């Protein structure tokens, strides 16, 4: 009897097992929905993501490479010293930020917001996303020349997007910004940014000003090719009804925090690598001789605790602990230091440059002085401003003002915003820079980034063949 019972139970169990396997097979197997990650997220989470990728990339790789070429920084250890400071700058260095920081990061997220916000009637999100897109794609064109946009962001539908000309990208930037301004002006939007907007906390008026500021910046980038027209566009736009930045309170700053894993990219690089020092161009040539009160904010003293010494580009001295050369100071190098994306002082220098080019010396002079003042205000040292500008090297008077003055003061004020400074230098040649010692390019400072290895391998038919010594369109008028 016992045997029969066991057999009976066994048979029933075997049948049950078969039932599970065969009759309700599909249901049993439907366990492949990812419980760990959402398949849809609200626009707010994508916006925070998009901004943080942009902010970290601008303060991170983009600034480190371009800021070294334009000699804000000099390498004192490792790859910063042995590779990009001597222009040994390969296609593997740009991989990370091209892929994960920009295209599949900040810009990928922005494109998703643009699509989604358009579909669900949230123009306010669409507008902010278009400004981020314009910002990012503009920077990429500044750095590389031709970059993908018109065929980009189609995900699996187009895995080898073609490249747009730099000039076309600049037009796209203007177009996106115009669209954004319209979107932000809509009275109804199902969803609108709020606390998820790390830069402006949902202040749409501020975003509109930022968009107008960026229009100025990008007209200015075409100064060599478009000449006077670019200056006129800038000055007219400022004079027109479009509100651009009006004070440092309008600045677009990406915040970081004094909390582990939330810190500023410059700070993290110092903390985790320490491979760069402030350059001797910034400290010893431009700032120390004029007793620039910004020095203790920009740099830290060397081992003696009082002296600020910059590192020459191309040095072979290793100085990770910054005992010989000054490391980055607290204003830009603290964990909670924001990364500036666009500032009132930059706008003033753009205005000064445009006015100078348009032959409006008085306007140029006023904007120049305002630019310096705005920078001191921003740094919180407005009390030292008077002594500093009292020096004729700083304030030569309206008649004595030259482009050299404007671009040099802009260079100093734009410290740590390497991408923009490098573009300025490539446009104007100011300040005059001496190529790094021990450079491997025969004494030529690079004028573009190499396309990343991933594009060369994965988008070979579209990626242009260039070297880091070939100027982009805004410099020489040729697209390559």
């Amino acid at each position, binding site marked *: 009897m016992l045997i029969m019972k*066991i057999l009976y139970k066994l048979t029933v169990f075997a049948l049950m*097992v078969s039932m*599970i396997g065969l009759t309700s097979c599909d249901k049993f197997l439907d366990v492949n929905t990812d419980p760990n990650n959402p398949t849809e997220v609200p626009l707010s989470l994508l916006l925070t993501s998009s901004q*943080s990728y942009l902010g970290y990339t601008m303060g991170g790789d983009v600034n480190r490479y371009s800021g070294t070429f334009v000699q804000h920084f000099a390498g004192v250890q490792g790859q910063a010293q042995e590779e990009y400071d001597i222009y040994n700058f390969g296609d593997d260095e740009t991989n990370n930020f091209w892929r994960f920081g920009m295209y*599949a990061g900040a810009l990928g997220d922005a494109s998703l917001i643009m699509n989604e916000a358009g579909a669900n009637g949230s123009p306010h999100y669409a507008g902010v996303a278009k400004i981020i897109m314009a910002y990012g794609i503009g920077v990429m064109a500044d750095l590389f020349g031709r970059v993908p946009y018109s065929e980009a962001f189609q995900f*699996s539908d187009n895995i080898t997007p073609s490249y747009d000309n730099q000039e076309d990208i600049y037009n796209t930037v203007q177009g996106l910004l115009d669209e954004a301004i319209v979107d932000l002006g809509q009275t109804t939007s199902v969803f609108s940014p709020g606390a998820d907007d790390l830069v402006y906390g949902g202040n749409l008026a501020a975003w509109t000003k930022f968009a107008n500021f960026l229009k100025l910046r990008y007209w200015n980038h075409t100064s060599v090719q478009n000449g006077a027209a670019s200056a006129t566009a800038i000055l007219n736009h400022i004079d027109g009804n479009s509100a651009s930045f009006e004070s440092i309170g309008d600045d677009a700053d990406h915040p970081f925090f004094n909390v582990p894993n939330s810190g500023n990219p410059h700070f993290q690089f110092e903390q985790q690598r320490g491979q760069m020092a402030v350059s001797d161009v910034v400290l010893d040539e431009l700032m120390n001789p004029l007793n620039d009160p910004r020095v203790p904010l920009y740099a830290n003293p060397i081992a003696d605790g009082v002296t600020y010494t910059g590192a020459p580009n191309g040095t072979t001295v*290793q100085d990770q602990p910054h005992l010989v050369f000054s490391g980055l100071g607290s204003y830009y190098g603290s964990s909670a230091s924001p990364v500036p994306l666009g500032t009132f002082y930059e706008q003033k220098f753009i205005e000064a440059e445009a006015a100078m080019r348009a032959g409006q010396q008085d306007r140029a002079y006023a904007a120049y002085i305002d630019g310096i003042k705005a920078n001191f205000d921003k740094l919180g040292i407005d009390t030292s401003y008077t002594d500093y500008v009292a020096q004729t090297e700083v304030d030569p008077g309206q008649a004595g003002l030259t482009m050299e003055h404007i671009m040099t003061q802009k260079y100093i004020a734009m410290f740590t915003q390497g991408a923009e400074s490098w573009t300025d230098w490539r446009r104007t040649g100011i300040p005059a820079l001496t190529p790094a010692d021990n450079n491997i390019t025969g004494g030529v400072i690079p004028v573009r980034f190499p396309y990343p290895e*991933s594009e060369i391998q994965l988008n070979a038919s579209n990626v242009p063949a260039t070297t880091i010594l070939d100027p982009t369109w805004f410099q020489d008028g040729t697209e390559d």
Partner: protein
Amino acid sequence: MKKIILLVLVSFLGLHLLHAQSVVSGTVTDDETGNALEGVAVVVKGTTIGILTDDEGKYRLQVPATGEELEFNFVGKLKQTIAINGRSVIDVKLAEDVFQVDEVVVTAIGIERGKKSLGYSVQELGGDEIVGAQEVNMMSALSGKVAGLTVTSSNGMPGAGTYITLRGSTSFLDNNQPLIVIDGVPIDNSTNYTGDPNNGARNNNLQGVTNSNRGIDINPNDIEDITVLKGPAAAALYGSRAANGAIMITTKRGGAQGGKMEVGFKTSLGFNQVNRLPEVQKTYAQGSRETYNNRTSLSWGPKIEGLGEVINPIGETVTAQAYENDFNNFFETGMTTDNSLSLRGGNIDNNFYASIGHTHQTGVIPNTDFSRLSVRLNAESKVASKLRTRISANYTNSGGQRIQQGSNLSNPLFTLWPAPATWDLYGIPYENADGTMNNYRNFFDNPRWAVEKNPFTDDVDRILGNFQLIYDPTSWLNVTYRIGTDFYADRRKQIQAIGSWEANTIGRVYEEQLTSTEVNSDLIVTASHDFGDDISTSLTVGQNINIQNFQRLFVQGDGLTIPGFYNLANATSIITTDYVGRSRGVSGYFDARASYKNYLFLSVTGRNDWTSTLSAENRSFFYHSESLGFVFTDAFDMSQNNILPYGKLRLSYARTGNGAPVYATQSVYVPSTPGDGWTNGLLFPLTGTIPGFTLSSTVGNPNLTPEFTSAVEVGLELKFLSNRLGLDFSYYQQTSTDQIFSQQFSAASGAVARLVNAGEITNNGFEITLYATPVKSGDFRWDILANFSRNVSNVVSIDDEDAISQLSVGGFTAPQVVIAKGQPYGAIFGSGYLRNDNGDIIIDDDVNSPFYGLPIIDPVNKIIGNSQPDFMLGIRNTFSYKGLTLSALLDIREGGELYGGTTRLLRLYGAAKETEDRETPQVLPGVKQSDGGVNDIAVPLGQTYYQNIISNLDEANVFETSWVRLREISLTYSLPANVVSKTPFQGLSISAAGRNLWLSTNFPNFDPEVSLTGANFGQGLEYMSPPNTKGYTFTVNLTF
């Protein structure tokens, strides 16, 4: 092993007693020695009536009136069938089965079959082969013992993982390891990485600790034998999970002791030491460009001799001197103890095997260890005349303490190997009174600090359970139901003290909990039928259900405030990741077999899988295998031939499928991780409060289908001269198509990759197992066993459009391990020398160049090596005389390259011995760039050469790993039976053994048998990996 196979045989016959009509008794003895044979199965032919002989070889059996013949079966002996002819006493002498024609092996799904009938290649190993390797990790013990099996240990750390492949790699991105099966139930052999899951498995493998593969939880002392199913044909019944073959482990059972209890006790003590240390220079001081500098990583300073007073890295003024800094002071002699106690008892119907084993190993690096406690019970019971049960339960607790390795700022080797000669490594305390660290450079931990302050611990509890019901309703039908579970919980904790660089000096603690559950249920029905005397057939039909659940809970706390208090409560920032992976599969399968006159064997298998990991439209897939075995010596009546009495041809074809990774069919959003290659970046939620999600950089693909491997195999088995010489040869061709892999594409599309089906990889190769007994004279015997294998893989294509030339499978940006079109699997890709069309290295001969007289680096990265060996050869020689056995295993690997990341750094830092001759002008081989003439420029090979050229030239740091090593040598003495009988013991043996005692290789500085990425498919890189070890073990084995 013999006892197990016997039991199996007996089980299948389903012995039981019936009311009988006459009684037959007798004694069974060994034909050669005349000794009584215990445990011989005596069966009335055509029935399930039978019994086992007792320890005096005696049997007594009641035979029904219909019984005409008795069969006598004993493993290793030829089966005898004797007509009763009314006799009541039948004594039998059993002769040795010289050619092992009755040998039974465990095949897929746990089905036992006569080896003679197989149409594909299998190889068997006894448990003593595993134990004899003196390895804590049984996977490492397989090294050199199976033709076609590649074994790669991560390094010599306690608990280090081991990666194994059979016949090459068939899948682009799956892990490519064979399935591990214990007593018919698949178990998990994963190597789970450690660290923040958002950092990706790849990064974690480059910089975490060396993790264990979970096969390490198996107590080698429990293993009765192992059968390796090498090709797809052999493993076809397992389906997708065994696309890379299977390793079938059978554990020990009780029962053949004729009712007596056998107690076994084994104890061993082993010692381990680093087997190879790098040579460093002691002539030049810390510094750069001949200038002393006390904060640099470099030893390119001035000559120490005559340098005079300098300020040392901790600010003291001292006279510069070269400190010995003997690496042996840092490393320790590791110790391994292994104790195991086993009990075997019961009779043929009700029996058990129980064991408890404990192993503890301390490493050569201070504060590292691994231990394992294993308890096992295997029991079998006949619950009714036609129904038996088998249960097996195994509990293991394993784990230990590990250190950081690889690209990790708290890896002690980073500041040990290249420590400047002028740095007093052992004299200067690593820690100051205020708790800060002393080191000669920033950003890396002092090695002595690193091993004291940053422990990683893991603690694994694992339970393997297995329950079987075996029902034999009639002599031609068998129904088996088997359910098995594999459960483990792995708790890990990483501490990084305040001051340690890997945690940015702010301190970190993380806790990780992994749990894994797998359940397998198999219902198997086998029916057999003979058609006349010549044709035998059988059909097995089965059904399998597989359930796998995996969970990872990771909590990282950064920014500790109280020194020495390592609890998450002490952190100022917490990051949490919660991952669950679930998959299920349902399968139906069959195996139809037919044989003709016991010399021609045909087998056809088929299996249909339904898997949860593919979409409903694609989840069902079928595959099949056909195999043929032809014993031509029987067919052509050659078995009496003295020279070649046994020969068999094998032929098989198989096609197996492989499903997709979990959750690959959909696109998801993941927490954002802004960062760059240089910093840790941001982790969301930012500040612990601000959330951010981004589209996963790899987008899903709902249209994925299974990947397939098809294989053709031919084989030949020959046994010569009374089996004094034997050969087993296999040749195979495998083609794997529709690879599922993450196809990288232009990031300008908005994502960087998607999973696709594409690509083709082939593996062709051959394996030869050769054994010989050159001398067998009286008590002396010399046996040789050699295993040779060669596998050539070729990546035929990667994507259907042929747009992708290569895929990264591991490593850094450069160098990395890639799958490249037209190359063998696992090519090493990185920067190489610029060469002319002849392949000559081009030398910079521009006198104004800083690199005048030095090689030029090709600006375009290329394939610079391959990790796959050309061939592998293991040769074991065994000499035995009476109770004394001397055995040595020589392991030879030819070809295959490894990126020597440590050697590169030692050169870059100016620490390597080869950098000592830095002032003599030398002419490097090559041709001049300007005119192509032979280089004649003599320049000193100093800092510029090593730092600017060699360290950036990955090709210059890729070295051939070819080696010859004495993997095992052992001397064992077993007390003769007549001596043992005077003791309380049944058996007593002692042995002394050495592991890895001798190594010959051209690989510089280290033993090349290491792998940075551990038990992972991206082999070919070494980067500050812990060194390998050699060891000595002394063992005493007692049974009573």
